[in-house]
């Protein structure tokens, strides 16, 4: 078969400093389920954003051909009209509105601005039947579970006569039963002639449902194969098969005593129905522990929960140097000697309107104050020292952090946490969005810290980084550690195996 419903050819998209997509070709046959797979940051989301018109025509190069006609979308509205519907990871439903209102949202059936409710209900009933959902459409959407909401989102897309349905990680928040139900409905839709592009990290599902698979890696199309020609190992090899650039300064160390110990840690967030279950691990002085896994596996949530910043703890104990402590708020954990540099430095790290000096001292004001009066000279001295040690490039420490580059912002965050003199430093995606030069500097800083006896945990979705710098790697999958590897025996394939739920 050579007739394609969708053909994306030579798609190239540049972001400042990064080539997100490089001459990508992606073709989909009508009525197939086509899986799009690749590591985090491989370019899957960017490609779909181009298809949906989030990135309007002109901001990328290459062509989109649908049903033989070249298209150029300037907005999501235009791509919807052509019959493309994307269902995002975070559902674009309005919680306060009813099911029928959500289905008709943005495309209301109305006469002279007055909504025709009868017609709206009729339409809702029709599409809900197609996705196998028997609920009263007048109920608010929040009555439904995440899985059912997912189905409403699909129904909504169908109500707009979608012919190409793009599902971005649809099962990430679903239980196994719900996932199975969703997959069944997708098969039904396929039988009804709907074409489906399926993005997922769960390789088992991909093999279960996809007719063909396209692999993206580092913004390039690696291959498109019929599913029957591949197996899981071959697919993983295609996904990770990249040379590890040698930018990682490695040192051999002998880890010391256990500093941090976490036992049976279980936290739960009812809002998004996510659980971190029975996590146990130990961290030694002078050791870099990597936490690998796919986005959404729960690594960030795990470390945030140590700071009382995520979910509700239901059980578990945490010990620092053998002493148990209570993670009742972030202050208690920091005081105990654990610091966390979050993955989102703009949201959780910096006060962007304030200068470097005030940002660095923010978590250590008690150390430089007497009777609660801050010693400004001590503050300047500390800030100057960390600015120099970390090689933060700035004309003055009075520079607003909002004006710094990503790498320098990250260093300010590091400076802030170093000033708290932590025994354990947790770095969540420490080099995301940072250029290579700054990356190497940050690796060197981390190595120095470890030499000084700090224990470091690094969460990273960049496998080569995890392999390059960590001494030991824990792999998380859906809120549980599924594997532990010493760096000597670890490979990208092994990590991917555990990260995708392998045993």
């Amino acid at each position, binding site marked *: 078969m050579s007739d394609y419903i969708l053909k994306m050819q030579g798609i190239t998209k540049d972001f400042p400093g990064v080539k997100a997509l490089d001459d990508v070709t992606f073709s989909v046959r009508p009525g197939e389920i086509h899986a799009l797979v690749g590591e985090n940051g491989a370019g899957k989301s960017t490609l779909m954003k181009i298809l949906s018109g989030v990135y309007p025509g002109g901001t990328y190069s290459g062509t989109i051909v649908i049903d033989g006609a070249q298209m150029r979308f300037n907005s999501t509205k235009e791509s919807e009209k052509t019959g493309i519907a994307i269902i995002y990871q975070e559902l674009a439903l309005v919680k306060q509105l009813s099911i029928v209102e959500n289905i008709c949202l943005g495309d209301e059936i109305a006469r002279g601005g007055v909504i025709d409710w009868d017609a709206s209900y009729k339409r809702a009933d029709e599409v809900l039947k197609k996705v196998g959902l028997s609920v009263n459409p007048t109920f608010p959407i929040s009555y439904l579970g995440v899985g059912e909401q997912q189905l409403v989102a699909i129904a909504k897309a169908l109500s707009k006569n979608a012919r190409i349905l793009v599902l971005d990680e649809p099962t990430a928040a679903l239980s196994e039963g719900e996932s199975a139900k969703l997959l069944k409905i997708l098969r039904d839709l396929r039988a009804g002639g709907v074409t489906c592009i399926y993005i997922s990290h769960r390789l088992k599902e991909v093999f279960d449902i996809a007719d063909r698979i396209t692999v993206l890696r580092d913004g390039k199309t690696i291959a498109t194969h019929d599913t029957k020609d591949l197996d899981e190992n071959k697919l993983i090899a295609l996904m990770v098969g990249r040379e590890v650039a040698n930018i990682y300064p490695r040192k051999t160390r002998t880890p010391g005593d256990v500093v941090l110990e976490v036992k049976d840690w279980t936290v739960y967030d009812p809002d998004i129905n996510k659980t971190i279950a029975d996590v146990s691990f130990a961290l030694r002085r002078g050791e870099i522990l990597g936490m690998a896994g796919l986005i959404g596996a729960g690594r960030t949530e795990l470390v945030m929960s140590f*700071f009382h*910043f995520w979910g509700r703890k239901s059980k578990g104990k945490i010990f620092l140097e053998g002493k148990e402590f209570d993670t009742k*708020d*972030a*202050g208690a*954990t*920091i*005081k105990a000697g654990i610091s*966390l540099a*979050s993955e989102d430095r703009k*949201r*959780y*790290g*910096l*006060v*962007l*309107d*304030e200068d470097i000096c*005030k940002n660095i*001292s*923010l*978590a250590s*004001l*008690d150390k430089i*104050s007497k009777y*609660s*009066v*801050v010693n*400004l*000279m001590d503050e*300047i*001295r500390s800030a*100057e020292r960390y600015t120099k040690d970390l090689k933060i490039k700035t004309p*003055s420490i*009075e520079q*607003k952090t*909002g*004006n710094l580059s990503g790498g320098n912002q990250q260093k300010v965050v590091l400076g*802030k946490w170093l000033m708290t003199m932590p025994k354990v430093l947790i770095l969540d995606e420490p080099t995301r969005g940072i250029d290579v030069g700054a990356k190497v500097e940050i690796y060197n800083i981390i190595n120095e810290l470890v030499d000084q006896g700090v224990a470091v945990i690094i969460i990273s979705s960049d496998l080569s980084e995890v392999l390059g710098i960590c001494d030991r790697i824990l792999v998380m999958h859906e809120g549980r550690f599924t594997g532990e590897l010493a760096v000597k025996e670890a490979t990208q394939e092994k990590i991917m195996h555990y990260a995708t739920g392998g045993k």
Partner: protein
Amino acid sequence: MKTSFVQNIRKYTMLIALVGIWLIFSVLTEGVFISPRNLSNLFLQTAAVAIITIGMTLVIVTRNIDLSVGSVAAFAGAVAAYINVKMGLPAPAAIVAALVAGLVIGAWHGFWVAYRLVPAFIVTLASMMIFRGAVLGITNGATIAPLTAGFKGIGQNYIAPYMSIWIGVAAICLFIFIAIFKRYKRSKFKFSVQKFPVFALKVVLMTVAMGAFFMIMVQNRGIPYAVILVMALAVAFNFMSRQTVFGRQLYAIGGNPDAASLSGINIQKKIMMLYVIFGGLTAVGGLVMTARLNAATTSAGQGMELDVIAAAVIGGTSLMGGEGTIWGSVIGALIMASLDNGMSLMDTNITYQYIIKGMILLLAVWVDIATRKRT
């Protein structure tokens, strides 16, 4: 170089605006506005609003608000007047009672805002009504007057002129000493300092301004107690906002609550503390207001919350949080009071007084936003 010039101008925009407003009114009133008697009066009129604005600035910095200050100030004043007049107790007892009332009300606000997570807008809107009702209850719907000499002195008495001169000289000397000392310490650590001519010009200008201010006071009847109180509170809160752990944390909370919280700051506790302090400050403002009027009336402080918020915002406090200075807000309060005072002198119809004040508020904030482009 050019950007630093613009930034410097921006810092002083409102000061320049204040001087401009004074010049215009001086011309329009043929010099009556600028007379020592009127200016001294103006400062006295500003005092109550200025005191409350000082606290409001910090509340807005943390992304909160307080709409109840008019009612709470009136309530604190009414409590004091009741004790002073109806119960015949001396001024100190009345003052203590009013302060306690203010602190308790502040704790009430803090509890709902910080620990029950009710938006500050609603909590204080409720208090605006609650305490207006309470004022009516205490005063029984009638004015409580006259106050004892000790009480009304807070709002009406002056420090003798010769003492005022010494206070003025001491204040100026202290200012110059601190400016030079800070510069010396910064340069000792090789920390960037302003170019010497700029620094010298700033110190000279400030000295002249302070000198003029004190001369005006002395030429009239000396410095009013209430004005001394404003200055002392402004100095104290300016210090607190810049140089104490608590003050710093308030700005971080307003600038980025998530980052502040993850940095170990207990936001709820800090917001609670702030509202308690602010309740006390509002009571002080209420005492000054009541003493100046020599009476507690049922309508005292009505509409004051708007003057206070307008003053803070004109003074450069950002409603988005994280930004605002104490001295800026004091200037903002002075601008608002100058408009009232000048237009009253000119016998401007009250209709236009409101319209003009509203337009100036809008204009001032727009200028601030338009010049705030991030570099």
